[in-house]
């Protein structure tokens, strides 16, 4: 295929205007010994028909949330995406625009991002939100870097082990050569015990990071930890689940200072991990330390309400090595999807979605506990995700369920020592009672056949 439009005659005319006789002459500045003297060793071009066949074949080799019943979570969720989200966000004017540097020619995206920022503030009860970060892990990391900037403390960062393992790993990678050091608080009971946090919290601590609901699905004692933090001048950073805020208390209301999230569940498909959406909201006082782009409202020459990127002196293109972050390209389209999704849901839709998740997840636990000898591993309140302890090897259990058409859960062994016999299950509003019953039956038969599977 080719997207080049100029005809041979046009190319000849262009070369004449430039004053060279062939395109090759334009590459004269590249020393010939540095030139590649062969074609690239990549496969030959395909037409659209061939590509479609090829991609369809590749796609058919992947199980997915459309051909299987998906109970997987762990930071990426099979929530329903209303058709309006895709219809609006596939408008060329949105998805083929660049960053809105020219405000006058970008009022559409700028206003939509201003609305996004407002929606995230309404959702979280915080005062300021940025126009997106990459995803959940870098959002936690940016929040931690920001907390050091806000507090002027470059000592300790306390992170609960119940925070998503990928987020913790990302944070440690970023901090490799920086001053702050991570102290991880173990969470053997499925949540960070405030007493354990108190023991390590000191006046050099910039922040405590919790995820609520956490990686096991359990709720954290966020309010109590917020008080502990504030007593020593540290900030509380919370990674939240946007959908949970249909029923759970808002971060701004329980004392979080920086609220971050993976926003994938707001209108973005699973996409094998990305592109997703990093959310970051905070208190007004920290606005000049916030990472990434921010849209502000102002007026134009004629006094009309107008939107523009603002507070840009924080950013890399102006402050370079002293910038609050190195982020440039963000996740604008995903932020737009989230804005449309939240608008489509409205307060009732968000609450109902959250209630469906809550009720179906609790129904699922009840069914599984009735039909099998499996039990919840942690005795903590949970929202839409829960951790089960299995009497048979988790791997064969999940494989069995897979053969029955269920992506049944995530084995926790790869992340947590001591949880080798555990897996987590997520139930979103999309799952039906009969799908949940089917999962319970599948797990029941797996447990019954478990012994055989192990011996085989």
């Amino acid at each position, binding site marked *: 295929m080719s997207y080049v439009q100029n005809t041979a005659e046009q190319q000849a005319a262009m070369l004449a205007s430039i004053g060279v006789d062939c395109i090759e002459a334009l590459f004269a500045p590249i020393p010939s010994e540095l030139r590649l003297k062969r074609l690239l060793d990549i496969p030959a071009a395909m037409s659209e028909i061939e590509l479609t066949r090829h991609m369809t074949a590749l796609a058919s080799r992947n199980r997915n949330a459309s051909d299987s019943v998906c109970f997987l979570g762990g930071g990426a969720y099979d929530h329903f995406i209303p058709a309006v989200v895709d219809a609006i966000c596939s408008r060329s004017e949105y998805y083929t625009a660049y960053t809105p540097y020219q405000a006058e020619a970008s009022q559409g995206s700028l206003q939509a991002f201003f609305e996004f920022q407002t929606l995230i503030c309404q959702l979280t009860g915080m005062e300021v939100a940025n126009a997106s970060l990459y995803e959940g892990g870098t959002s936690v990391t940016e929040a931690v870097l920001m907390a050091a900037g806000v507090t002027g403390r470059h000592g300790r960062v306390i992170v609960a082990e119940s925070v998503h393992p990928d987020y913790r790993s990302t944070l440690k990678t970023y901090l490799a050569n920086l001053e702050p050091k991570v102290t991880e608080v173990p969470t053997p009971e499925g949540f960070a015990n405030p007493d354990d946090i108190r023991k390590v919290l000191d006046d050099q601590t910039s922040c405590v990071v919790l995820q609520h609901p956490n990686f096991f699905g359990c709720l954290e004692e966020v309010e109590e930890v917020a008080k502990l933090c504030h007593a020593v001048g540290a900030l509380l950073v919370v990674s939240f689940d946007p959908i949970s805020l249909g029923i759970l208390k808002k971060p701004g209301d329980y004392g979080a200072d920086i609220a971050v999230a993976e926003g994938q569940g707001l209108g973005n498909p699973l996409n094998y991990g990305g592109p997703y959406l990093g959310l970051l909201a905070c208190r007004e006082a920290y606005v*000049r330390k916030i990472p990434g782009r921010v849209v502000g409202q102002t007026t134009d020459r004629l006094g009309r309400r107008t939107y523009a990127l603002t507070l*840009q*002196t924080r950013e890399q293109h*102006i*402050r370079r090595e*002293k910038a609050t972050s190195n982020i440039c390209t963000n996740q604008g389209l995903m932020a737009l999807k989230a804005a449309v999704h939240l608008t489509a849901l409205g307060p009732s839709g968000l609450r109902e979605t959250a209630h469906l998740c809550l009720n179906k997840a609790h129904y699922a636990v009840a069914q599984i506990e009735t039909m099998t000898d499996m039990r919840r591993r942690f005795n903590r309140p949970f929202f839409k995700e829960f951790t089960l302890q299995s009497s048979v090897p988790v791997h064969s259990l999940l494989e069995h369920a897979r053969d029955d058409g269920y992506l049944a859960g995530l084995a926790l062994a790869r992340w947590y020592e001591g949880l080798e016999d555990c897996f987590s299950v997520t139930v979103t509003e999309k799952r039906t009672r009969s799908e949940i019953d089917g999962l319970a039956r599948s797990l029941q038969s797996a447990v019954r056949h478990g012994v055989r599977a192990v011996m085989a």
Partner: protein
Amino acid sequence: MVPGNLRYTKTHEWALLEGDVVTVGITKFAADQLTDITYIELPSVGKKTIAGSACGNIETVKAVSDLYSPVGGEVCAVNSGLTADAAPLTADPYGTGWLFKLRVTGNAADALSGLLTPGAYQNQLESEGH
């Protein structure tokens, strides 16, 4: 001409010693470069500064200028009114537009000896073509 009673830095701050307290501001030249100040960040009272190190900044829409502490000391006062209204900074940079005051660490008279004299600063401006 620049005021004769002050000392200067290469980065366009001025310093005035009274007792063991040094008042710091930016020069008229520097202030004239700043059109439409949007934000001023001053060090907080009690902060210890090191001579020549950044301790605050002045922002316009598309640029940030760092503020450097001319001498080492402990910040004992800041002109906090400027954060709400930056006008004095450009209108009266040597007077009501002062930025912060430092209590000098060590010998106060020595502290200023490393700074430019009015003549030397004037020469710098001229050699930079201003």
